[in-house]
């Protein structure tokens, strides 16, 4: 039994592609390499298998690894919107940029994006007990980063410039979890319910192994990343809407 297979995705519909992936995992294949990926959506949706690695060569379409629980997907190329959407467990490593709503509602595992992400990155990420999702972005992020965030850890490193976000709505409605950015973001860009405080040494120590892992994954020098100052964006209150309502 082969532990590694290659799939040529050229001209293949996403359902056929996913069927091949599922069949391979069911057969005990541990390493799946998919070539010529060109916009196929939903790759790896809902698949399980903690020891399975899928390499995607090309540009996957939206909702990559949605509901995924276990495997690692490595993308050599950019990804479309919402990779890691509602993902439960596993890893998504993107050697490139990704679109909007990266890691939307993610509840576990980690998503690493080497370059930039679009709008609403990490929106409504959540955590529960040992499940604490991690999203790390190497470059920059667009508006509404970490909106409605309910848990988890989001780090934006700003390798393309500091601060890594210069648009509004950062952490608007955040009521759990934490966002670390290199440098300081303009306070006018903080969303309602978010607060920004310089990260303490203790907090920097907490994120250090994650940054090291990220740097190692993409072959980056971690030293400048580790010696920088970070800001921590967190909920001003765990109950952002508590004072909005009265009873009839």
């Amino acid at each position, binding site marked *: 039994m082969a532990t590694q297979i290659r799939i040529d995705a050229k001209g293949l519909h*996403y*359902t056929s592609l*996913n069927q091949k992936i*599922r069949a391979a995992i069911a057969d005990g294949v541990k390493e799946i390499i998919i070539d010529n990926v060109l916009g196929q*959506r*939903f790759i790896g*949706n*809902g698949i*399980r298998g903690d020891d399975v690695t899928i390499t995607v060569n090309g540009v996957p379409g*939206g*909702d990559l690894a*949605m*509901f*995924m*629980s276990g495997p690692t997907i490595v993308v050599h190329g950019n990804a479309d*919107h*919402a990779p890691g*959407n*509602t993902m*439960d467990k596993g890893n998504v490593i993107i050697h490139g940029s990704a679109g909007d*709503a990266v890691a*939307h*509602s993610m*509840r576990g595992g980690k998503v690493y994006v080497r370059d930039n992400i679009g709008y*609403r990155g990490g*929106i*409504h990420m*959540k*955590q*529960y007990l040992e*499940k604490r999702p991690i999203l790390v972005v190497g470059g920059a992020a667009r508006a509404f980063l970490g*909106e*409605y965030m*309910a*848990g988890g850890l989001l780090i934006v490193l700003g390798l393309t410039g500091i601060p890594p976000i210069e648009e509004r709505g950062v952490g608007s*409605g955040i*009521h*759990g979890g934490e966002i670390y950015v290199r440098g300081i973001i303009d306070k006018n860009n903080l969303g309602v319910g978010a607060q920004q405080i310089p990260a303490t040494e203790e907090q920097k120590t907490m994120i250090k192994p994650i940054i090291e892992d990220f740097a190692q994954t993409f072959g980056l020098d971690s030293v400048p990343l580790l010696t920088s100052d970070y800001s921590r964006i967190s909920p001003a209150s*765990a*109950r*952002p*809407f*508590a*004072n*909005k*309502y*009265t*009873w*009839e």
Partner: protein
Amino acid sequence: MTIGSIPLRFKVDIDPDQCMLCGRCVDNCSYGVFRKDGDAIRVNSRNCVACHRCSAFCPRDAISIYEKPTDYRSHPVWTREVRENIFNQAKTGKIVLAGMGNALPYPIIFDRLVLDACQVTNPSIDPLREPMELRTYLGKKPSSLSLKESADGTVELITKLSPNLQIETPIMVGHMSYGAISLNAQTAIAKAVSRIGTFMGTGEGGLHESLYPYQKNMIVQVASGRFGVDINYLERGAAIEIKIGQGAKPGLGGHLPGEKICADVSYTRMIPEGSDAISPAPHHDIYSIEDLKQLVRSLKEATEWKKPVFVKIAAVHNSAAIAAGIARSSADAVVIDGFRGGTGAAPRVFRDHVGIPVEAAVASVDAKLRQQGIRNKVSIIASGGIRESADVAKIICLGADAVYIGTSALVAMGCRVCGTCYRGQCAWGIATQKPELTKRLDPDVESVHVENLIHGWTLELAELMGAAGINSIESLRGNRDRLRGYMLDEGLLNVLDVKTVGA
């Protein structure tokens, strides 16, 4: 400015000649109306919400509850409700939260539609003697069938059929989450629907482990908060429902306050205890009808196209066009939730003023899908304000395949529609997570009540169909000729595609 105290909403009287000081009212009231004081029961009427738990358990019928014991100067514009709402907001400056469904006295279209019956020229059918077909299949139907006949004469179906849900009666129980209602209430409904052969919705609260035995009768919901959603949850459900909107508060998300997130709700929703569970107004991965199609297909891919996917929208002005988009998204059913739909908590201004009646929405959705030749691509499920079997019959005549009931099922378990679900103090053990209250609801006993209700409605539906000379629900569906409008205006008759009485 001094507003002073607002007149009592309810006055509780205890008849001292009847009262035997047993104290059941003291024990049963979860709102603190009663206290025992020596040889008398004292009453604080201001705390009363008229949930009737006390009077229902008073062994001597000693308790009477009166609504609005103090009159305002009557005025048709400045109603009591309008004035009290102003007092409330003048004091607080906040959004007013309210429970249950629409509380304004809009005319009810159902009550202005009448059903037909056979007389002489075509005989009615006796359901006691003749089989009545109420079984319904929800999901896509093929527009045509391809068959292949082999040499030995056997015929093979070539067309690939989409998965459908088989229900033995066109009545299901809609989505009320664990968190909004208690686990005992959900369990009672689960037991009832599995015995009947119909389905219930989980709501956006995940699926509690103890309900796994009933999972084949469960429709699991995926809403904007994605609470409790993982691949196991999706695979457990018989179908998956994407909740876009809710009739009680169209355009809004949901917000379960932290104090309702007890350990067990936290576990089922997969969020920390005591944290707010906020469902955003939109799904943040759906900003267009094309995005909806992606979520539908994403759910299908994740579950290998084995399960029907429903999409629930609130009944709003453009429901018909939206439903046409949904029908083209690969979804298998569209749920139309009318503006009378219930809720644990909604801003009063939304509950009472946003959305349209389910009767008009379903009729227009059905008509639009037929005009476009895509009615077979989705089933239509109607919900929001279905109160009795006649409503079921009428909405099916207007084009629905099945209905969801919500409040009706809760009333079957004791709910008195007091509308204070958002307080989390439900004395009936339904809309609360307090163990001392939830234990009042015995899932075995209440499951029988819910089952009885659906069974009774199903019998009545069969009788109504038989009287109309119809022996299959298929022949009732969209059969507007069996309806007549009574005192409806011409515009509405046109929307419903129903003739007036006498015509």
